[in-house]
């Protein structure tokens, strides 16, 4: 029997699991800014809980070379630095990405006094079907660590994947709805079970 947990907004401490991008690099010297919101569900099988969640993030992605860009992402209540490198391609464009992030939470609102960290590795495969539309899929591996003030530590490894559709409009704008699913392969951070997220990012490039 599923047991519904508290509904929360702004999930305390859970790192970003989102991608909201294609494998296509940002042009050198250019920057794209994105605002994303998503809703999700964290299911813990051992504890028999399902926790709904909502998430907001701001990202700035800057092209440093023709094939490599770096990203700074801010979310509640953490931050993340990432890098993506395009591997080229033809009808399909390929890229790999890595991101390292963390958060500090305080006691209250369902959270505890703790540090969280995560490392996320993503592979992206993009098929651009028109000047406006591109579709991207890929696997995601996320490692997380939970270090509470009161002692001990816990880790977790999530295996998952994502799919999104990027729609360009107005020249520099882009909207990216995305669905991602993750399963705990080891450990218990953030849960011992599954995570599902559905969200949308809207951004503009300069």
């Amino acid at each position: 029997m599923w047991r519904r947990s508290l509904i929360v907004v702004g999930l305390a401490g859970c790192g970003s699991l989102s991608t909201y991008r294609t494998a296509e690099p940002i042009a050198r010297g250019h920057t794209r800014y994105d605002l994303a919101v998503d809703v999700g569900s964290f299911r813990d099988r051992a504890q028999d809980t399902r926790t709904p969640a909502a998430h907001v993030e701001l990202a700035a992605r800057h092209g440093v070379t023709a094939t490599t860009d770096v990203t700074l992402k801010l979310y509640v209540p953490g931050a993340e630095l990432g890098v993506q490198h395009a591997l080229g391609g033809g009808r399909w464009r390929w890229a790999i990405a890595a991101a390292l992030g963390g958060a500090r939470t305080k006691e209250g609102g369902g959270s505890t006094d703790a540090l969280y960290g995560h490392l996320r590795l993503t592979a992206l495969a993009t098929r651009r079907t028109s000047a406006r539309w591109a579709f991207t899929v890929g696997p995601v591996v996320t490692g997380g660590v939970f270090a509470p003030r009161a002692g001990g530590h816990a880790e977790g490894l999530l295996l998952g994947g994502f799919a999104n559709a990027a729609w360009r409009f107005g020249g520099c704008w882009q909207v990216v709805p995305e669905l991602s699913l993750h399963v705990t392969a080891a450990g218990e951070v953030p849960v011992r079970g599954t995570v599902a997220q559905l969200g949308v990012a809207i951004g503009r490039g300069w």
Partner: protein
Amino acid sequence: MGAHHRWVLAAVALSGCLDADERCGPGSLAAGADRACAMPGWLDRGYDVHVPAGWDGASALPVVMLFHGGGGNRGGADRTTCPVGAVDSPQCLAARATARGFVVVVPDGTGGRPLRGIRTWNAGGGEDGWDCTSGAACQSGVDDVAYVGDLLAELGAALPIDARRLYATGISNGGAISHRLACELPTPLAAIAPVAGANQFADTGGACPRATPVLQIHGTEDPCWQYDGGTQACLGEGGRKTSVTTTLEGWRLRNGCAPTFIDTALPDVDPTDGVTVTHRVWDGCAAATELYRQDGAGHTWPSGWPYFGEDRIGRVGRDVGNDQLLDFFASHVAP
């Protein structure tokens, strides 16, 4: 290298180092100490300890263990016992207990995932339609009896505690774990005073062979743990909870009491609270078996904090309080 790029990196949101709690080892707890202590071997299961200011530094100390309710944490546990939630009040349980020479220990239950601050105790149940009391700790089978055993060992390394004067109390899930500890903790408790929580463990088949003095405190209008048991719950769905009557019948038998009792109407100290209290004492007990039946009270601590509105948790009774609870503890020593 190309155009001049101005690239400013924002500071990572990790606000410096986490100032971790330390173990409260030998010599770290003096008279009057109020410390947050790490609990080694358990993830994020620290505890607060309050040492009497009048302790002479050598005498063995009685220990009151205060267990928070389901979904709560140690930070809110004592606040629940305070009039109108005023944590600085000398009437809070920790303040009254330390003033009377008790060490007060307030531990943290198991955190949920991913909401680590939503904490619960494994107080039993979970089969044949019985509520698993409660939440994540019960569902995942956390051994909270072992945790409390480790907690007492850890505390005993830091302070000279009196193993014959260990007491447990708490509200709701905290009350229920008090019952379970009386049944299962290897070191017998001198007495327990569960508030708004019954013996889900033993009443659903858990082995509970030991006699233990019990003062059950429960409101007849409790919407979260109904006096007569049932499936009504304040948070989420749940199975059946045992009744106060069943719990106390179990203790009556273990404690060697006669089936007869004496009911005494206690003074209506606060006639405006909508609550009156009947003190029931079973006859001829080898171990005291008593009940404060708070007629009209809800899922609340006696003379404590209305942590939610009356429409959700019912009334707070103000005719008995922490002193009566501590009087019960003070009058019982384990054999």
